[in-house]
């Protein structure tokens, strides 16, 4: 095949497209920081695990909301499905091996994601928002109703999780095991999501977000792309939920609540959606602020959070990373100009 003269290989746009999947020099930084955290703050590892779970959950939402543009307020449905899968299996003594139950959690969430996605993703905008919200509330009510199995509002306490790999004790007393475990799970999921996002498949998701009509017109199987993306996103959210249940050794209705769905939404937007590292920045910033401010001044925290959201919506629609990227761009432009 002869190269088309329209986009020479050296063209800036072509270079961006062919090289964007390559590893940037700073990309190992989050992982180095996480390992440094492990050694620097051994007493905060429980909190660190919480942050990692929040990042993973936000990453799953980023795939659906940030990349494919699926407006959902019900993502906690999958988080909760994963958490209850782990919880129910462990509590009733059916299965409690950590890694395989995490995979099961992802699978159950994926099934729910596929089942609801195939039906719901025909709609858009407000209707979609309502449908995802109602699906989540429906699951929450169902979990509330199955009192004998799910313990309703009180949830399932004291889950007996088996030792990791048959060797390492796994419960909230062994925060270091949990932190490393959560970090590895996050890393594996992240590598998967990163590969997906930079693949042609990921590119077509962005296309759907930017202009759904045009994607229809060029013959992209838009609905299937959305359904598969929603399913994958649900699976990752389910893994995050399962991880949460394992780390806390309990499950309750809050895993399925609007509160959790809104929180993950906020974390992602705060960091910057449609960017791989938005979930990381948002997760760390939100969780640290929540951890230290919300305990001391709960009301002021809520007020501040509300104001921040309003400001982001009005002035900084791409989150913290978006602001950073804009500043960097301006700096570069100035250097070129001078």
């Amino acid at each position, binding site marked *: 095949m002869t190269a088309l003269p329209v986009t020479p290989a050296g063209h800036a746009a072509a270079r961006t497209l062919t090289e964007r999947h390559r590893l940037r020099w700073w990309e190992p930084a989050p992982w180095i920081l996480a390992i440094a955290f492990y050694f620097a703050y051994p007493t905060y590892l429980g909190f660190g695990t919480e942050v990692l779970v929040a990042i993973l959950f936000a990453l799953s939402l980023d795939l659906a909301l940030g990349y494919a543009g699926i407006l959902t307020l019900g993502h906690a449905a999958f988080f909760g499905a994963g958490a209850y899968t782990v919880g129910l299996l462990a509590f009733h003594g059916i299965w409690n091996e950590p890694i395989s139950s995490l995979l099961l959690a992802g699978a159950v969430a994926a099934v729910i994601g596929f089942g609801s996605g195939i039906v719901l993703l025909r709609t858009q905008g407000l209707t979609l928002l309502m449908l995802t919200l109602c699906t989540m509330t429906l699951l929450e009510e169902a979990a509330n109703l199955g009192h004998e199995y799910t313990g309703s509002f009180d949830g399932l306490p004291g889950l007996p999780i088996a030792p990791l790999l048959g060797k390492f004790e796994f419960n909230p007393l062994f925060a270091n095991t949990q932190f490393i475990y959560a970090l590895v799970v996050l890393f594996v999921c992240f590598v998967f999501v990163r590969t997906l996002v930079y693949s042609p498949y990921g590119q077509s998701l962005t296309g759907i977000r930017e202009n759904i009509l045009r994607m229809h017109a060029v013959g992209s199987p838009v609905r299937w792309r959305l359904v598969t993306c929603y399913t994958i996103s649900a699976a990752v959210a389910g893994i995050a939920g399962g991880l949460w249940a394992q780390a806390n050794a309990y499950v309750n209705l809050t895993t399925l609540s609007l509160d959790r769905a809104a929180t993950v939404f906020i974390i992602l937007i705060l960091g910057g959606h449609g960017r791989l590292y938005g979930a990381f920045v948002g997760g760390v910033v939100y969780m640290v602020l929540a951890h230290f401010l919300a305990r001391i001044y709960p009301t002021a925290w*809520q007020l501040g959070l509300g104001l921040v959201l309003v400001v982001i919506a009005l002035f900084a629609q791409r989150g913290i990373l978006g602001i950073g990227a804009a500043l960097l761009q301006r700096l570069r432009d100035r250097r070129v100009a001078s």
Partner: protein
Amino acid sequence: VLFGFDVISILLGGISAGMVLFIVSVGLSVTMGLMGFVNLAHGAFAMLGGYVIVLSMDELGLGFAPALIVGFVSVAAVSVVFERLLYSRLYRADELDQVLFTIGLVFVFIAAITIVVGPETITLTLPPALRGQFDLGFTEYRTYSIFLIVVGVAIVVGLWFGFERTRLGAQIRATVDNRRMAESLGINVDRLFTITFAFGSGMAALGGGLGAEFLGLDPQYALKYLVYFLIVVSVGGLGTVVGVFWASVLIGVLDFVLKLYIPKGGTMFIFALTILLLLLRPQGLFRKAER
């Protein structure tokens, strides 16, 4: 007949709860239909109104009717400020930003109410004339429920008249149907929206006050009942008045029956039904499909 009596009391109880839903939600329906703005903060305006009404009765000693007027006017005025300063910047933005902005607003309202009034639940003390039972001739029922039904029906008739028979109503309907066409005909859509937004928020305030008797008022009100308001609007159809009225009656009665006979998990049916309905008729039960 015992069975007949049951049906009547269920209908009256459900419809009176539905009236509150209707009064709160009708503004949301019209503003969402007009601008396509996803306003999740509508419940917060209802909550604000409820607090203004209840507190002006308790603290300032106002009567019920004057308090309702104070609530309507003050919340409508506040909402105009919000609309002009903040909402209007986001009319052409993504739904995502609108959702984010209005969720943020809800948090601000919740925190503000918690700081100013406190986190406790407060309730409405009814004036003596509205307490007790009312003799309908064939049965007796709570006076306040009858009062709510009368008020709700009066409002829907008034709104229907305003919507279908006045110039302003015609402009609103035209803009809901085709915004660009309405603009090119010289209708000032921005001004129209400010008016309807203020009116809708005022109505929400009224509903917040009227419903405070049995819903109670606490800072979480804005989030707690939001799902119900949204369900009513999407079942009834965006931009309709009469549609939202029937949807409110439907949801009100259904909720009442389910809570009475299936106290555990009865509300599941409402959500399941809503999902089904939205899938089959995304434009709502009472709105004609787009041609």
